[in-house]
């Protein structure tokens, strides 16, 4: 399992990579839409990359309620907890 901080910094890097912005500009309270310019599909793109990178299954329906970067991190953490001992590999 990834430590919580590792996961957050990996996600921060991924967001920065996808949006071609500086990772430092992504904070816990950054709103994916208003602050980072991602629409609902953009958020999904982020989760899709994370799901491939961490080899975990992220549910599409639950993902639609994510508002902030911190929400996204918690969502991924929850999914990892649920799948830990299963096929989640970091």
């Amino acid at each position, binding site marked *: 399992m990834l430590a919580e901080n590792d996961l957050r910094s990996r996600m921060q890097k991924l967001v920065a990579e996808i949006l071609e912005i500086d990772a430092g500009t992504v904070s816990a309270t950054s709103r994916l839409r208003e602050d980072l310019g991602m629409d609902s599909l953009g958020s999904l793109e982020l989760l899709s990359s994370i799901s491939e990178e961490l080899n975990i299954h*992220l*549910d599409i329906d639950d993902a639609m309620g994510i508002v902030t970067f911190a929400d996204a991190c918690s969502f991924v953490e929850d999914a990892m907890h649920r799948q830990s001992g299963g096929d989640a590999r970091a």
Partner: protein
Amino acid sequence: MLAPDTSTAGASAAERELLVAEVRRFAGRHVDGNAIERAGRVPDEVVAGLRDLGAFGIALPAEHGGSGLGVGDACAVVEELARWDRSVATMVGLHSGLGTRGIVSLARPDVAAAWLPRLASGECIGAFAATEACAGSDLMAMRTTARFEGDEIVLDGEKSYVTNGRFAGCYTVVARTGARGHALVLVPRGTPGVAIGPEEHKLGIRASSTVTLSFTNVRVPASHLLGSAEGGLDEAYAVLSWGRTVLASGCVGTMQAALDATAQHVATRRQFRRTLGEFPAVRTRVAGMAAMLFAARAVTREAAEAIDRGAPSDHPSMVAKIFASDRTFEVCDAAVQLHGALGVLEDVGVARLLRDCRVTRIFEGANDVLLLRIAAARLTKREAAPRVGTASSHADGCDAVGALLDAAADVLRTRYGAAVVAKQGVLLHLGRAEVAHAAAVASARAAGTRDSDADLADLAVRRLLGEARAELDALAGCIDVDRISARVAERLYGAPPKDRPQAFARPEERP
């Protein structure tokens, strides 16, 4: 003037027929597609005639000198013009859609009052500038900036492929206003610092103006901001619903021209002691062309009606644009084929139709990218595929395929979760199935309307449902195809580092 000066949202069917008949009379006398292409520009007399007809003001508000009609009426005019020449139709269509909608819906009242009367009369023609050399499908990559300095907006950057750019009186420019914000800004022609590049030489619509515009320290009053200072991309996408629907109507006009020319040709050209039209294979092909025209008209009308009644129009306008532009190319290709060698001779005219329609699968959103968006929306929105909803002999067939589409989306959601967005092969099949199904549903609904033809609807629905089913079948084997394709691509040009669905990081979707 083409239409009564009314502020209602649309002309009645009879008024629309009169309007189209008047455009037809004018175009029949003055619009010669081959001559216009050879000249490489739309003649001044044609532009003047269109002004006299009121063609530039159809969908502009009556209080600003327009006819106050709806997008459906603008589409009817553009469809008719496209039967005669696609460059002329593109000039009017771009003006009626992207060139003026931002001003109609977002300009401050004083700016609207200053510009809309001139745009409605056609004294001033509109243009829209979003694309840049490095920002086509990926508009977020644009570099042109708009800075707010006191009571001015200062623009710097360069826009590519601006339709109507050579002669437009004003441009709606999309520019970056900060790290992630964008704005639409109205820039008048002749503002110091605006430079117009040379005309591009193109495969088709050669008389349509396509230029690069560059902006160097261009200053316009702050009042020229259209809409918000940050949400310009959302606003641009809303304007695009109009643009795509009008573009689809131009495709319908081109299809009609290709069908008319082909029907006439196969009825007279003799081989093997018979007219071509007597051969069953030819009959089937021509009837298929007519059926696709019927379906394209039906989806385009549904998109226009959605806009005119203020319903969500992003999805129907994308469906109409993809379907009409793809099928126009198919129908024009069939027209060239059935004309034989004559089909490739420029003076005959069908070769021009084929060349002219090719770009419609690229501009106002490349079809492949729009298909991916449609599929991703189906997977994320959890809405059922549309059902016919009226009494129709096709309802059961359409609704059964709709249910298959819903089931396929459920399976994909369960199997891949959020990772499905990266599976573009899967998404393309799903998107194509969705578009074919939506066109079948629109055709089934249109089957009962006044000017419909039951046989055409029948042919269209049968074929489109078959196509939708085939796309859904192909989904199953598509992950293997993706994997093999990735290996082939790697040998051809080196594989991209990661399968990332870059098309989707766009703020165009309103919750």
